[in-house]
């Protein structure tokens, strides 16, 4: 079942088209990534979906509510981590949480206190609850902004760069939390990030956007293979010789061999690498090659992303 359905969403600022007929859907409990360079339209898309700005064209339905006609209802069920942390620096950590908790309609005082305590404990901010936010480090502020986004138990989360400014341990904690929210609470997550490793680890599907347009959508693996090419067999030898290279070229099913003399590596392109790799290794050994390493490399999401952003879709 779709939690978010976006159809032809467009936003213009004067002559500038920030988001251009964007369409996608996100299933309930799915972590959906939105990747793109600065100015690609990611933040504008999130702002439209969170009912902060209205679309110039198109529509979007979130949990059955239309973003134009039912904006208050959507704001109640959506949690948002904005690009800027948007925290009140003169208020304390607890006051920030209490304000947003009440603003989101958590009216029961005991429930509110319990929820805030639970989140601040989780993010290691309980000890700092009485401190003004202005005195916190950037990473702590980011964690507090994340805690604020969760204060009303939203069923949909919009996260704009959630791990930015965090140390590796805190980044991992946030990634684990996002996964837990998706798996155990069926919380739908729309994740905007520049960190491709975050998208690769977390997202079941990603969409690459550029100049407001959807360039491609798929699983991180699909995108890697579809855009950046097929898997390759990487063979490292102690020494490269013509006879060894010829032996590989002559092997059955091998389509192309790239030679890296500097690192004594052969990059082999072929169909069905899993079944023909032993044959190629056998041919190499027969030709007198001394193999030090064999590895099948998969094009990463990063390769796909860079290829798409630099050269356009292939």
């Amino acid at each position, binding site marked *: 079942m779709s939690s978010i359905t976006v159809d032809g969403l467009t936003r213009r*600022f004067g002559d500038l088209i920030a988001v251009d007929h964007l369409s996608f859907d996100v299933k309930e409990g799915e972590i959906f990534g939105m990747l793109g360079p600065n100015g690609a339209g990611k*933040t504008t898309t999130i702002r439209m979906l969170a009912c902060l*700005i209205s679309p110039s064209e198109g529509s979007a339905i979130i949990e059955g509510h239309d973003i134009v006609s039912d904006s208050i209802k959507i704001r109640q069920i959506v949690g948002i981590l904005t690009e800027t942390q948007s925290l009140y620096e003169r208020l304390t950590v607890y006051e920030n949480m209490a*304000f947003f908790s009440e603003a989101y309609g958590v009216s029961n005082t005991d429930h509110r206190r319990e929820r805030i305590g639970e989140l601040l404990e989780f993010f290691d901010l309980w000890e700092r609850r009485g401190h003004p936010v202005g005195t916190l480090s950037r990473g702590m502020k980011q964690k507090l902004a994340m805690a604020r986004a969760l204060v009303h138990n939203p069923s949909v989360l919009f996260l704009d760069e959630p791990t930015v400014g965090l140390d590796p341990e805190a980044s991992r904690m946030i990634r684990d939390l996002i996964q837990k929210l998706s798996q155990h609470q069926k919380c739908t997550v729309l994740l905007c990030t520049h960190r491709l490793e975050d998208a690769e680890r977390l997202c079941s599907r990603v969409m690459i956007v550029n100049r407001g347009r959807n360039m491609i959508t798929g699983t991180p693996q699909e995108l890697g293979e579809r855009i950046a090419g097929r898997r390759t067999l990487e063979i490292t030898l102690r020494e490269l010789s013509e006879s060894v290279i010829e032996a590989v070229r002559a092997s059955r099913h091998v389509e192309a061999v790239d030679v890296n003399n500097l690192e004594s590596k052969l990059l082999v392109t072929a169909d069905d690498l899993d079944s023909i790799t032993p044959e190629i290794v056998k041919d190499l050994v027969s030709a007198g090659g001394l193999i030090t390493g064999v590895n099948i490399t998969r094009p990463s999401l990063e390769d796909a992303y860079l290829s798409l952003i630099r050269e356009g879709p292939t």
Partner: protein
Amino acid sequence: MRIDKVLLVFRKDWAELRRNWQVVLPIVLLPLMISMSLPMILNSLSNSITMPGSALGTFEIIIRNLPYQTRREVEGMTYPQATIYMISIYLIAPVFLTIPILTSSVIASDSFAGEKERRTIEALLATPMSDAELFMGKVLVAFVPSVTITAGSSIVYSIATDLILSGLFNGRLLFPNPIWILVTFGLAPAIAIASIGLTVMISLRVKGFREAQQLSAFLMIPIMLLTFVQVSGVMILGSVIMLGSIVLFLMIDAILLYHGVEAFKRDEILSKLA
């Protein structure tokens, strides 16, 4: 519109405001200094009125041309008493009308434009509170302190004037005075709302609170004009003009608040930040 949400925004902004000494100090200290120093200045003026060549000699003409109702107030007073009475009651009143303008424009620009500048507005606008609730909460946080400070300054001025000038008026107290009651509790709040309304309109169009504050200073011009008009003897801020001004400002308030709510749209605010 839910009152609890309006009060929630008010409480949040109030908590922020009272910790911001850069905003609090000028809006509290300046009115306090004005209300303490003016009675002392009036006292020294009273001693110099009868001196040859005193600039206050021209007041005789103004007093002679006062409207009948106002002239009755100074009947039986000596010339120095009448002059000081006119200055302390009528000429100083517009000075106190600048206090709600000053305080409310500083607070409103910090609350509206400041929130944009500090980039805290996005999370606030993402909450399920309506535009009108957010707007009214922010209007309230500028209105309550500015009216309280004006009333406080007015009370301090009244007590200090009565104490310092009691000798000149042979124990007769000048305050409380109906004109000042109207100024403090009628015209000043009405002017404060107008000032907030205008500051909001300006704040929504500019990026920073300093720009909003500087542009809001233009509101002082009509009040300064009122002082000059009175000094020149053209018009005196009597009870009829005062009541008329209150009604006029209430109408302006209604128009500005209506347009303020209309202009306070999430879409507009964030589109300008984009």
